[in-house]
């Protein structure tokens, strides 16, 4: 560190603490340098790049089919949505019509991913604040979805299930039955989440009024997803720029106005209920037919620019493809939600305590590979 140490008039001095890269609550290799006055945080400065793989550079050397599997490795808890975003951008460029069956499957998969990501987040959030039980509860429910994914996609984490034109395989024969069983079970489990944390006095004390982000700041920093909506920034891509089956399903955009850690927490809990609602509307009406449209083996996008947004579990993911008509994109940019959400951390944590920073960071739900790319 090259900063000069500033002496206060009373002889005390501010000091720096490294939080991470191995700190358990940074959820990966993220390093934060905290400037402290006693226990009060004056500044949080993220240092990134520990798992920077330059996916954008790799994309310039790969063809369009190969790119999709790289996106699994960005926000690995939203793997389906990441694949979905790239596929939509490519399909948009090729003007391919995706079969109705694939559209519905994709939407169901996205929402299952959202639930699985949020259950994991909920468990980890509890653990960050010192409650180990929630971690076990969260993983219990997360596991059911992972099994459903494994049956259909053949993988548990990096599914790589979407392909340009549809999905890679048809649904497993047990998919509908198992998903319904999961939803029925999860609807009895979700109230447990509230009993354990949402109505817990210690938890409320640690989260209410902590880490406040105003709506204006959320927009300026581009904080999207549940974190942005907790500040009142209506940024749900599924509502405002709908894609796939979202225009035809009925669900609420969760909005809070407080912008504190607790409302970010509540936004995600409520979102899980909405996801259940969406899946229930679709699971009985999966149309028969093809699950993938015929596309050429070698995909060449026409010259031009393609931008596609999707709503991942963390917020707005943007895929920006600049094509010069070749097999590979000329330039590919991923606007990852975690990157922008992290940038607002300083704004939220300033003036608070280190323990509050842990709670605030939990509700941002950072996935470091998504930030570093």
């Amino acid at each position, binding site marked *: 560190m090259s900063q000069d140490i500033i002496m206060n008039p009373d002889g005390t001095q501010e000091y720096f603490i490294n939080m991470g890269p191995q700190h358990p609550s940074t959820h990966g290799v993220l390093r934060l340098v905290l400037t402290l006055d006693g226990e009060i945080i004056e500044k949080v400065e993220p240092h990134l790049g520990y798992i920077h793989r330059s996916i954008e*550079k790799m994309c310039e050397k790969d063809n369009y089919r190969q790119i999709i599997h790289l996106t699994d490795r960005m926000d690995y808890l939203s793997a389906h949505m990441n694949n979905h975003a790239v596929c939509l951008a490519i399909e948009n460029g090729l003007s391919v019509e995706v079969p109705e069956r694939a559209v519905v499957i994709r939407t169901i998969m996205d929402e299952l991913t959202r639930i699985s990501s949020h259950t994991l987040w909920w468990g980890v959030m509890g653990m960050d604040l010192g409650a180990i039980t929630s971690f076990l509860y969260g993983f219990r429910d997360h596991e059911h979805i992972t099994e459903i994914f494994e049956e259909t996609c053949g993988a548990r984490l990096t599914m790589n299930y979407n392909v340009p034109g549809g999905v890679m395989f048809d649904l497993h024969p047990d998919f509908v039955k198992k998903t319904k069983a999961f939803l029925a079970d999860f609807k009895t489990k979700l109230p447990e989440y509230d009993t354990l944390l949402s109505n817990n006095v210690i938890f409320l004390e640690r989260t209410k009024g902590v880490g406040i982000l105003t709506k204006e700041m959320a927009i300026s920093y581009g904080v999207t997803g549940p974190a942005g909506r907790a500040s009142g*920034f209506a940024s749900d891509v599924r509502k405002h720029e709908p894609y796939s089956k979202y225009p035809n399903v009925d669900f609420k955009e969760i909005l809070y106005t407080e912008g504190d850690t607790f409302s970010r927490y509540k936004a995600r809990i409520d979102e899980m209920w909405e996801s259940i609602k969406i899946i229930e509307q679709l699971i009985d009406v999966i149309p028969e037919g093809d699950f993938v449209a015929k596309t050429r083996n070698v995909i060449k996008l026409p010259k031009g620019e393609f931008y596609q947004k999707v709503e991942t579990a963390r917020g707005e993911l943007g895929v920006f493809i600049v094509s010069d008509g070749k097999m590979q994109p000329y330039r590919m940019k991923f606007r990852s939600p975690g990157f922008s959400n992290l940038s607002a951390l300083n704004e939220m944590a300033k003036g608070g305590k280190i323990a509050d920073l842990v709670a605030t960071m939990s509700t941002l739900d950072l996935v470091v590979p998504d930030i570093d790319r």
Partner: protein
Amino acid sequence: MTNEEFISTIQNWFPDAEFIEEGSQFLNVFVPKDKILEVAKKLKSDNATQLDYMFNLTCVDWPDHFQMVYHLKSSELGHMLVLKVKLENKENPEIETLCDLYRTAELHEREVYDLFGVKFINHPDLRRLFLTDDWIGHPLRKDYVDEINIVSLK
């Protein structure tokens, strides 16, 4: 605001802006390098446009210039627009920062500085973001050579 309304409004304010609609789902507005701050300020603050949410900031390395790309959206009105700036100087690309208008630009511009080497004038903290300080070159430039890690398909 529709694209036609955008064009007439912006042309009124800045006669030297150029507009392209082909090859993109957004309206692309090309502005001269030294006007970017002024244009962005107007687009953000004016009641008709209110483009207060920057959802993407990036750079593209074309053979003869760098192109800065700013994707803007209005959180109130929902319309979108892309601002583009040509940076002709490939040796030493420079542009005014938009940090004061859009806080999200702070990290995004550091990323562009790190990976493209574009300098942002008046940026409060312009350092490399992902790579180490002693890294040589800017990897997302097309002329970047790394024989060990980059394997070409051809």
